[in-house]
């Protein structure tokens, strides 16, 4: 009887360990911050890149049905790749406003970048030391966050916007 109890305990323990191991293998270990979808944007204040007296805050987001917050920099190659989608989004649709947040960049380089590729942004804010990016849960650029006028995160795009992401955003805001 004692042996049976011991065997049952060892057998259950092995089964349990194997189940945990099997479940662990099935879990997707690629980290992303998509868990932020559905959460509210915390309070922020952004200063315009060329005018230190011009600011926007959460109130700006409440005025628009949808706002896409895009983190970019002139030194970021994938930002160049996604830029045409941002331009297309801003020209095609009036339901969405686009805020650009210039991440750890020089003002002159950012302005040249926008002059060269076009400016899709309704407001360009500066994040010289990157601290603002942390309050938005950003860990690399480019990253974009689609929020509605209730300040809820609808979609997070980690990496450059591609055709699929662009179509998704269009579908959401239609």
């Amino acid at each position, binding site marked *: 009887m004692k042996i049976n109890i011991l065997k049952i305990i060892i057998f259950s323990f092995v089964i349990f360990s194997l189940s945990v191991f099997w479940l662990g293998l099935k879990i997707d270990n690629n980290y992303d911050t998509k868990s*932020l979808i559905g959460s509210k944007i915390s309070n922020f204040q952004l200063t315009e890149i060329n005018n230190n007296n011009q600011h926007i805050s959460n109130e700006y987001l409440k005025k628009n049905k949808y706002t896409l917050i895009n983190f970019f920099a002139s030194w970021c190659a994938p930002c160049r790749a996604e830029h045409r989608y941002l331009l297309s989004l801003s020209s095609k649709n009036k339901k969405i406003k686009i805020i650009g947040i210039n991440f750890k960049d020089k003002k002159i380089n950012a302005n040249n970048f926008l002059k060269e590729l076009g400016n899709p942004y309704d407001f360009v804010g500066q994040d010289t030391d*990157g*601290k603002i990016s942390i309050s938005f849960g950003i860990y690399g650029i480019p990253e974009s966050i689609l929020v509605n006028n209730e300040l809820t995160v609808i979609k997070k795009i980690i990496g450059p916007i591609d055709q699929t992401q662009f179509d998704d955003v269009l579908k959401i805001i239609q």
Partner: protein
Amino acid sequence: MKKKFIFFIFYFLFLVPLNSNDNKTELLEIYKNLRCLVCQGQSIADSNSDFAATVKLVVQDQIKEGKTKDEVYTFLISKYGEWIVYQPTFSKGNLLLWIMPYFIFIVGGLIIFLIIRKSKSIKAN
């Protein structure tokens, strides 16, 4: 006057560096518990990445504002999820993770106890 002067000298020589060391130790402790999300298995303390540098700035700011270690962790968890801290917080979701070591310890102990008792009874017989 002389006493005051001696006190100020003592304060600036010993107490001020002591306080700043305390602050540095606390910051280092926080950095060590934060995972660098863009590095391979490094903490914020070990990493020189852009992301780690920015997180360090934010942590320094929050500690200067008077926030506690737990408040800093709560803020970063709300932005990056539980994955950013090496030591997870106690919640329903990770209850198993916290209980498991104690469970294994008790079950392991029970198994060893039963094995020893069994071998003793065999020897006695």
